[in-house]
């Protein structure tokens, strides 16, 4: 007599695979967000204040990457890195693709925020004798980073969603792990829904975190 397996039972069976997939998703998205933000802030600074010859490569980077689908980017990193003699695994290649993507977006929002700061702020910094790097650290960036926070949270959630594309190059992140579980138990709807729920949890956590930070640094 065949017994209909319960979803909870199957979930229990698949728990380790799913947990590993969940962690992989968080890891690659997290790495991409952290390094992408660092790259993006730097690129944004250069794009705003750099000389034309310094801006040129960053402008090319930002325009090129932003004009390319993330999917293509991930595939490109996966296939091109080894072709260029750089032996990296699927996870590294995928994380690299996401990082480049994140960096290009952050670069543009940082540039926008810096350009929106009134000119008088830099002048006031100069007038009390701050050097440019000092003005940047104490006057301009604190204002720009506050400004980009909501957009940055949005970009971060985009990265988490884009991390599912790593399933195509064989990284067992949450989506691929889910697909593997479904291939075993055929509970398509249940497990896709569950995966969707987990992605929502990650992104909702990012949004909550963003809102907390916003509240903490908000100016009266």
């Amino acid at each position, binding site marked *: 007599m065949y017994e209909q397996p319960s979803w909870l039972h199957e979930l229990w069976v698949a728990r380790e695979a799913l947990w590993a997939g969940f962690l992989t998703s968080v890891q690659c998205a997290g790495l991409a967000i952290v390094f992408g933000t660092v790259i993006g802030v730097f690129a944004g600074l250069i794009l705003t204040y750099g000389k034309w010859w310094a801006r040129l490569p960053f402008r090319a980077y930002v325009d090129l990457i932003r004009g390319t689908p993330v999917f293509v980017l991930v595939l490109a990193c996966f296939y091109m890195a080894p072709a260029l003699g750089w032996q990296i695994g699927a996870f590294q290649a995928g994380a690299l693709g996401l990082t480049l993507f994140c960096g290009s977006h952050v670069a543009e929002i940082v540039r926008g925020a810096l350009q929106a700061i*009134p000119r*008088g*702020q830099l*002048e*006031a910094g*100069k*007038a*009390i*004798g*701050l*050097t*440019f790097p*000092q003005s940047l650290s*104490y*006057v301009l960036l*604190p*204002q720009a980073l*506050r400004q980009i926070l909501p957009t940055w949270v949005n970009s971060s959630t985009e990265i988490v969603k884009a991390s599912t594309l790593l399933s195509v190059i064989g990284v067992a992140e949450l989506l691929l792990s889910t697909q593997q579980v479904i291939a075993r138990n055929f509970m398509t709807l249940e497990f896709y829904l569950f995966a969707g729920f987990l992605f929502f949890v990650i992104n909702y956590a990012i949004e909550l975190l963003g809102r907390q930070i916003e509240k903490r640094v908000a*100016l*009266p």
Partner: protein
Amino acid sequence: MTQTQTAPAAPALLSIEGLHKSYGPVEVLKGVDLKMNKGNVVTLIGSSGSGKTTLLRCVNLLEEFQGGHIRLEGQDIGYSDVSGKRVRHPEKLIARHRAMTGMAFQQFNLFPHLTALQNVTLGLLKVKKLPKDQAIALAEKWLDRVGLLERRNHFPGQLSGGQQQRVAIARAIAMNPSLMLFDEVTSALDPELVGEVLSVIKGLAEEGMTMLLVTHEMRFAYEVSDQIVFMNQGRIEEQGPPKALFEQPKSARLAEFLKNIRF
């Protein structure tokens, strides 16, 4: 203000010679000469576009200039002649020279993410490298001086325009500059807030602060200045003590200008 050593035949505190400044093909300063001694209060007046704000901003190099010299306490500002060639100073030296002047702006330009106290301490900590407790003590002294000690933990957004401008003045003056620049500091203020700012400036003038001002407040200029400089089309048209200048203008331009303003 504390008296610094007065060398015999002390050179002018500020000396501007043959200052030329162009925005592209448009020449806005066409050879300006101006001297100020310690303790002088000099006010630049003139219609808009006459170059008075540009002149002020050249003194701390917020505007670059293409010809002439500006010397503050005997030091070249912005550019030096090195074997006949005009060389721009390195950024660090420019920053050091800028710290010798204080500036208050029309739009206050307080740092919106810092409290009133932090606005004043920033330069003391990062430029003067004072220890934190000294910086705070000094900042509080000056905030008290402009009547805003109890607002020290307020952010600029929580202060009125007049209060913001007073904090901005405290921020500049706490750096102990040898020259204060005031660029139309009351122009952006509601009429009822102008008085509180002017009285702060007046107090500083009476204490012997050397100041170069641009203002449209003619009565104030009359009362506070040793010298009034009337600028017209990028040149100094006429200068002299306020009484003489306002009551017996020599040039037709100045007479015309004075006729059109209210006291």
